[in-house]
C-alpha cells in the first residue's frame, strides 16, 4: 500500500513527535500539576469556610481573612493559567515573571495560617489541612521554577 521510503518517513515523523513530546518542560509540568493541586485545595477551603459560616459554626470575622486569601489565590491562579496555556516549555523570562506571584501567594497563605482565628476545632482542622496543601503545592512550584 505504501512504499518503503514513505513508511520510513512516516516512522521518522512519529518518532520525532514522540521524542519532542517526551521532552516537554519539567518546570511547566510541575507548574501545571501544582496549579491543579492549588485550585482544588483552594476551592475546598472556600467551600468549608462558607458552609461553616452559614451553619453558624464559624463567625463572619473568622471566615473573612481566609476567604480574602482564597480569592487572592484564585485570581492569581487564573492569570498564571492564562499565561502558560498552550506553552510547551517555560523560558527563563517566563519563570522569572511567574515566580514573584507564586512567592506572594505563598507568603499570603503562610500569614493566614499563622494568624488563623477559628474557634471551632473541626473547622480549624479542615481549613488548616487545605491551607497546608496549598502551601506544599506552592513550595513545589517554587522549587520547580528555580526558587
Amino acid at each position, binding site marked *: 500500500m505504501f512504499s518503503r521510503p514513505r513508511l520510513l518517513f512516516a516512522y521518522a515523523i512519529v518518532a520525532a513527535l*514522540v521524542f519532542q*513530546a*517526551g*521532552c*516537554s518542560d*519539567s518546570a511547566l*509540568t510541575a507548574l*501545571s*500539576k501544582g*496549579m*491543579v493541586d*492549588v*485550585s*482544588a485545595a*483552594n*476551592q475546598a477551603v*472556600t*467551600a468549608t469556610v*462558607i458552609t461553616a*459560616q452559614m451553619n453558624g459554626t464559624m463567625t*463572619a*470575622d473568622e*471566615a*473573612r481573612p481566609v*476567604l*480574602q486569601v*482564597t*480569592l487572592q*489565590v*484564585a*485570581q492569581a*491562579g*487564573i492569570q498564571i*493559567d492564562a499565561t*502558560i*496555556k498552550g506553552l510547551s516549555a517555560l523560558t527563563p523570562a517566563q519563570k522569572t515573571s511567574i515566580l514573584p506571584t507564586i512567592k506572594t501567594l505563598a507568603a499570603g497563605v503562610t500569614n493566614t495560617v499563622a494568624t488563623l482565628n477559628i474557634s471551632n476545632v473541626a473547622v480549624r482542622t479542615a481549613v488548616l489541612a487545605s491551607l497546608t496543601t496549598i502551601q506544599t503545592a506552592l513550595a513545589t512550584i517554587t522549587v520547580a521554577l528555580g526558587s
Partner: protein
Amino acid sequence: MPTAIQAILALINAAIPNVANLIVAIKDANGNVSIGTLLSSADVNFEQTITQTQAWLAAHPAPTPKA
C-alpha cells in the same frame, strides 16, 4: 466511551509521561467524559472560588472601625 477514553489516556500515560501529565479525562455533571488539560480543570476550580468568595465578601463586608 468513557472506558475507551480512559484506555487511550492510560496508553498515552505509559508512552509519553511528560505530556500525559497535562492530559486528563474530565467527567461533567451529566456523566459525559472529554479529554482536557489539567489547566482547564484548575480554571474551573479557580472560577468557582472567585464567584463564591466575591459573593460572600459582598454580603459580609468588614465592619468599619468607629472614629
